[in-house]
Every structure is written in structure tokens, then in C-alpha cells.
């Protein structure tokens, strides 16, 4: 395996050491990212607890079915990404390419659903700072929607970065710069990031759509 790895930088003695460092680096990065989202999650959790009635009223305004469809789409993209990593590790180049393209398409579909949701909610007056008047009387319901827009927005930005990364892999592979299975670690790293962004949604979806329904 070790002769099939990319060139070793001078600070490493062997390729496996470099690989282990790359992997650990990404995990540490994801731990940091988890704390970034953690702040929003805990705020939401606390206000679910302090203002259950307002949170219930606010949650009811969200389109549950669109949320469910989005979740399904995103979970499917997790599957295709996992398939891409597996195929890349085994050097099956065509399958990798198809799975990566599928991931990009599903990621874009999720973003489209989310943008549609936002426009829909804006139209109903659920974006408190602008648009039609906010329909609910409770102040905490406004807070819910402020946190809703910031958390889904932050997630969408992360997903957009993921889509760009996977699209980059597609371009690299089409132009022949992604030699497999030698550069499998690159696919693996992007895959890990992608799964992280999906897991964030797996927590966001119930926190926003289900808990107070």
C-alpha cells in the first residue's frame, strides 16, 4: 500500500505517517466545526426548553414535507459519497466518477430545496427583519426563526463548499490528475467532510422541524 501513496514531505519519515497526520488533521478540523454548529444547537435546545409554546407555534410554520424530502436527498448523497470512497479505494475509476457526479447532483438538489423553502418562508412573513409582517405574537417565535435562518444558512454554506470540493474531484478525475487508487486519500478526506455536513443536518432537521411539533 505504501508505495501507492503520494510523495512524502520532508517532515515525515514514511508515507503512512503522513497519511495518519492528514487524517488526524481532518478529524481535528471537524471537531472544531462541530463546536461552530454546537453554539447554535445549544441555543436552540435551551429555547425549546424555556419557551415550549412559542417554539411549538414557530415549528408548525415550517413545511415538514419539504424538510423530509430534503433530508432524504441529503442521506442519498451520503450513500453515493460513501460508494465513491469505496470505489476509489479499489481503483474502480468509472464507478468513482459516476458516484461523485451523483453526489454533486444530490447536493445541488438539496440546496435547491432549501432555497425554495427560504423563498416560501419569506413570502409567509417568517423572515422577521423584512418582508410581510411576522404572523406569530410570541417574541421567542422570532428568535426561533432568527436561529433557523442562521443555522440553515450556515449549513447551506458548508454544503456549498462540499459541492465545490466534490466537483473539483470530478474535474480532476476527468482530466486524469486524480490517479486511483494512489490518490484515494484525497477522495476519502472530501468524503469525510461531506459526511460531517450531512450529520449536521441529521441533527438540525429534528431540532428545527420535529422536537416541538
Amino acid at each position, binding site marked *: 500500500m505504501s508505495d501507492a501513496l503520494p510523495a512524502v514531505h520532508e517532515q515525515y519519515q514514511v508515507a503512512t505517517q503522513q497519511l495518519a497526520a492528514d487524517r488526524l*488533521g481532518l478529524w*481535528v478540523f471537524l471537531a472544531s466545526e462541530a463546536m461552530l454548529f454546537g453554539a447554535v444547537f445549544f441555543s436552540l435546545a435551551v429555547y425549546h426548553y424555556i419557551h415550549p409554546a412559542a417554539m411549538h407555534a414557530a415549528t408548525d410554520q415550517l413545511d415538514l414535507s419539504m424538510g423530509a424530502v430534503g433530508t432524504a436527498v441529503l442521506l442519498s448523497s451520503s450513500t453515493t459519497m460513501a460508494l465513491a470512497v469505496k470505489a476509489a479505494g479499489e481503483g474502480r475509476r468509472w464507478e468513482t466518477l459516476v458516484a461523485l457526479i451523483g453526489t454533486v447532483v444530490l447536493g445541488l438538489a438539496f440546496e435547491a430545496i432549501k432555497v425554495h423553502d427560504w423563498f416560501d418562508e419569506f413570502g409567509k412573513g417568517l423572515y422577521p427583519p423584512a418582508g410581510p409582517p411576522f404572523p406569530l405574537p410570541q417574541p421567542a417565535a422570532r*428568535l426561533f426563526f*432568527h436561529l433557523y435562518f442562521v443555522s440553515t444558512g450556515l449549513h447551506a454554506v458548508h454544503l456549498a463548499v462540499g459541492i465545490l470540493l466534490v466537483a473539483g474531484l470530478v474535474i480532476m478525475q476527468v482530466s486524469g490528475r486524480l490517479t486511483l487508487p494512489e490518490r484515494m486519500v484525497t477522495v476519502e478526506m472530501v468524503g469525510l467532510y461531506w459526511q460531517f455536513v450531512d450529520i449536521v443536518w441529521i441533527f438540525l432537521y429534528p431540532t428545527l422541524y420535529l422536537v416541538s411539533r
Partner: protein
Amino acid sequence: MTAEAKALPSKSYLEDGYTLSSWFFSTDHKRIAILYFVSITLFFFVGGAAATLIRLELLSPTGLFLSNDAYNRLFTIHGVVMVWFFLIPSIPNTFGNFLIPIMIGAKDLAFPKLNLASWWIFVLAGCFVIAALLIGGVDTGWTFYAPFSTMFSNGYVVPAVIGVFIAGFSTILTGLNFIVTIHKLRAPGMTWFRLPLFVWAIYATSLVMVLATPVLATTLMLIFAERVLGLGFFDPKLGGDPVLYQHLFWFYSHPAVYIMVLPAMAVMSELMSAFCKRRVFGYKVVAYSSLAIAGLGFLVWGHHMFVAGESVYAGLVFSLLSFSIAVPSAIKVFNWTATMRKGYVSLDAPMLFALGFIGLFVIGGLSGLFVAATGLDVHLTRTYFVIAHFHFIMVGGTVSCYFGALHFWWPKMTGRMYPEMLGRGTALMIFFGFILTFMPQFILGWLGMPRRYHLYPPEFQVLNVLSSAGASILAVAYTLPLIYLGWSLFYGKRAGANPWGAAGLEWLIPSPPPRENFETVPVVTWEAYPYPLKPQPVERKETP
């Protein structure tokens, strides 16, 4: 020690290119350390200039030359610059960057390009903050408390917040780099419990950097969203909750205190062992207490909010946890002190800084117990007592150690010795100047003088003048090293590989070190701090 780590005759890292781009785009951890050193020195004097103006203004009960608004902007810029652009990067990004790879027997950090990127990110962040300062400043205080910062402040909050936000990524990337390096790049034989305690403490710091800083990023993002987009998280008028801001901010900012002080503790272990020629007493306990401080540091943020509308029960728990964090800190102080027992103590400048640290840190730590007690804190919070408390920790503690580290590793970094007598004089001036500056502030706070006002009742003038007199000593003492260290770069005595007769891999390689640190990767067969050193060229007496 063994021959694997012997000196080698290759070019030093300072001779590895003389162009500007060979510095600004170098991926050598030692050069990046120097880049950080130069940039944070600039920020130190910006923040220091603000402090000087504050102490001048406070000479008179009616103020000398500033409006209320200008005074608010002055202490804000002092806080923002000193916290995020000096204290947080101070020891980790200069000495950590320079020393961690060498101490563990590696040729560089795990991700050298990321290291360079983090410096550039830091510079970009600094540009935003300096721009905010130049176009008119910020008047919120370094804490950016909402809803003042989001709805009412007429200062330039947005550029300042963006600057701090960007600086956070520099911190996160540095922490990430250190964690991976310490895990994966240790030389053969360099087990976890053979690591110098410096590395342990920087490791603990890095954990806090990586896990706390993103929460600051989120918090600043919310300020931005509220101020610019009108999304109300903190302003009650928009449905927000101002207490939420304080929870989020202190969830970061209390651990950030340990980002600032754990590296000072890292330096302490090295200084005490090197100048007592003894292994640090209770090595493992000191190592674990670094991790304990890092962990407990995440659980005590509520002690900043005893009067902010937090529940009594929450206050009790936060108070208890805050008391408990004093335990690992005290363990460290006792162990450093015990290291001196039966040691060959030499009072060179770095050791004087280290002893100064113990004195100032103990006062700062004990006064921390005062403000951790809920009942007492109601009286003391938002007074000069709190100002004195945290300056004792962060300036008395961290800045003393920063200067101790600077003198200790100066010969290693530059290959030159500094003038010893001037170094000792500076150490003494910093210690006594510091006491004179901040002791009166404890009394002022106890008597009820609130922080962040430039007008005060005339009966407080004597203590304020004493404090300003101390600050003038500090101003001289902090400027002196700039002059004599600068002088020593050209005229200082050449330093050998190990001018202090100290243990540690960094002292086995030439001063200044070659580009690749070690010609061949060292194989470590000895424990940390193997005093008395046997094959060292420095003469020393045998242990009785």
C-alpha cells in the same frame, strides 16, 4: 546524550535566503515564528500605547484630555489588540512554533503551508482591526456586549468584529497544526512522558484553541447578522435574549484565558528546570494538570454572569467549579517551587522573570477565588478589582513568562547573547512596576471604583496616581528589551549551542538552528530533564 543528535555544520535558518519573499513565503516553522514575533511586537506597542494614554487620562479625577467617547474607544482598542493580537498568539505562535518541532525531534510542523497560511490570515485580521481603529475606533469594550454592540454603538463594530473573526481562524489552524504534530511527528523513542512539559502545556492550549475558538466565531457571526441584517438574537426588541450573548461569549472567553495562561505555564516548567538544574518536581502531575485546566476551563464560564440574570443554582455550580480549577493551577505552582529545593538555582534574567511569574500569578490566582465567590462577586464585579485580578494573571503572569521565554531562547533563536545585567534589571523593573501599577487597583476596586469610567471621585486620586506611576515604570521596562535585544542582534556575544547548560533537544543543535533542525532524526533514549547533564561541556558540581 547520544551521538544521533550531534551538531551539524550546515547553514542556519537565518542564512537560508535574504530576500523578503524568502521570509514572507517561507514554510520553515522557525521563520514563521519570527514573522509572528515581529507582528505581535507591533501590536504589543499599539496596545501598550493605548494603555499609556488610559493611565495618563486617569491621573486626574476630572480627566485630562479625553472625551467620554474617546475614552471608551481607547480602552476597547487596548483590550481587543492585547487579547487577540498579542496575548493569544504570544507564546504559542512564536515560541511554540519555533520550539515544538525541535523539542519533539521533528523537522517541521505537520502542515508547514497551513502554518504560513495562518500567519497571513493573522495579518489580514490585523488589517481589519487597525482599519477599524484608524477610521474612528470601537466603543463597546473588548467583550462586544450585545445589544449595545449590535443596535446602539456608533463605533465601527463591524470591521473590528470581522478582524477578530478572521484572527480566530489563525488560532484554530495553529492549534490544529500543533495537535497533529505532537501526535504524529515525535522522534523515535520520544514517548508522551518523555516530552518536555512545554509541549504538554502547548498541547492542552491547542485543544482549547480548536474547541473554544469556533464558538467565538459563531458569536461574532451572530453580532454581524444582528447589526447588519437585523436578525435579532440578542436585542429583546427583536425577540432576542441579551443573556444568550453573554453565555456564548464567555463560553469562549473563559477558556481563552487558558489559551493565554497555559503557554506561560509551559514556559515556567522549562525555566524552572533549566535554572535549578533539576527535573521538574512531579513531572506527570504537572503534565496532567495542564489537561485538567484545559478541560475544567470549559465548565466555568458562568462566573462572569453572577449578576447577569443567571439562576442562583447555576451561580452555585459555576462558583464551585471555578474554585476547583484553582487546584491544578496551585499544583503547578507548588511543583515549580518544589523544583527549586536542593537545586542549583542561578538567578539569570529568565529565572528572575520566572520567579516574578510565581509571585504575580499567585496574587492573581488568589484574587480569582475572591471573584469566584458569588456573594463577594456581587460587590466586586465591574470594579477595578476585576481589572487588577485579570491583569495579574495575563500581564503579570503571561507577559512576564513571555519575556522570560524571550530571554531564555534568544540565544537559540538568534545565536547571540543579550546583555545579562540589562536583562536582570528589566525583570526587576517589570515585577516592581507591575506591583505598583495594579496593587492600587485592587484597593480602588474594593472601595468601589467602577471600571470603564475616566471620571472618578477625588478621594481615589492618590491610588490612581500611584497606579499611573507604576505604569510609567512598566512602559520603560517593556521598551528596554526592544533596544538591548536589537543591539545584541549585531553586537551580542556569540552563543554556543547550549549557553545555559539546559536539557532538551533544542539545546543539542547549533544556535541558530539549521533549516532542517536535525540532520538525522534523533533517537531519544532518555527521560525529560535528565539533570545532572553528563556529557555537557558546561561545568557543574556533583549532587551532594
